[in-house]
């Protein structure tokens, strides 16, 4: 009886893993025409539920690509030389270990916080990427779209 139960659980887990491991999505879209000014600062606003410092990874990635980027708690009127507000959310899930399932990034107008460019990557367990790779993939796709607009 126990053997049968283990058999069924193994089969279910196997299928559950298959069903969950096959999704790979990455996308970027320019919603409104945008020109990034390298002299102005891109402020990365920290996502309230992020305890892993993804804001700093995003700022570092933008800096690596030649932009001035700073991570902040919340963008307000006290900040100067604001070029773009960068917001994001990251979603993590457990599968033997915790990994980043999804990263969604938006570049926003500092005037009205309207979303100008969006980028999203979604990789399930078998094709999981490190947070640095996820950030690089999303930011890379967004900047490529801006260049080609």
């Amino acid at each position, binding site marked *: 009886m126990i053997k049968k139960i283990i*058999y*069924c659980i193994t089969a279910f887990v196997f*299928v*559950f893993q298959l069903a969950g491991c096959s999704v790979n999505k990455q996308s970027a*879209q320019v919603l409104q025409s945008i020109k990034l000014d390298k002299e102005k600062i891109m402020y990365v606003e920290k996502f309230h539920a992020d305890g892993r410092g993804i804001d700093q990874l995003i700022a570092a990635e933008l800096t690596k690509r030649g932009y001035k980027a700073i991570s902040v708690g919340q963008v307000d009127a006290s900040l100067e030389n604001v070029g773009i507000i960068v917001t994001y*959310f990251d*979603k993590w899930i457990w599968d033997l270990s915790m990994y980043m399932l999804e990263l969604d990034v938006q570049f926003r107008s500092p005037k*009205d916080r*309207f979303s100008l460019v*969006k980028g999203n990557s979604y990789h399930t367990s078998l094709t999981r990427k490190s947070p640095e790779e996820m950030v690089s993939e999303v930011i890379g796709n967004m900047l490529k779209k801006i260049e080609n607009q």
Partner: protein
Amino acid sequence: MKKVYNLIKFGVVVLFSLMAVGCSFSNIEPSEMAANAQVVKHHQGSVQVKVTGGETKEDQLKITNESFKQSIVNAINKSKLFGSTGDGKSDYRLDVILNSLDQPAMGFTMTVNMEASWIVTRISDNKMMWRKSISSTQTLGVSDETGGVARVRRTTGEAAARNIEKALAEISKLDL
């Protein structure tokens, strides 16, 4: 013979599991996003609605462009925010871009966060009259909806409905 029996048994379990995991999650229907917008004033002109950025695949438990568009049109018609809606010649165009949809993978209490960008353009001179990225959220627990998948569906639908209500309320304040 026993091996064949075991193989069939395994196949049945696999099929059942596949059905439970990924084969029955249709996208959110317009009726699940029914919005009751409270409008301040009514605009006389006609409007055409265009939605982009939504899910294009079936069976994803997400929001498609078509279903969100239908919900917006239904809400506009119900609230009489604009004189009429249609895809033909119109006075205004309402562009809606589904920016993000943050749904929970699991949990007892489920919160869905959604953001859509709304743009109103006057067609005669192609002038953008208003734009805003609008966020909405909805949280439901087991007491609201017992089944997990049903809970995600209802939470997502209601988050989308709140987004439409917020947007239409703001558009109703505009001087078009």
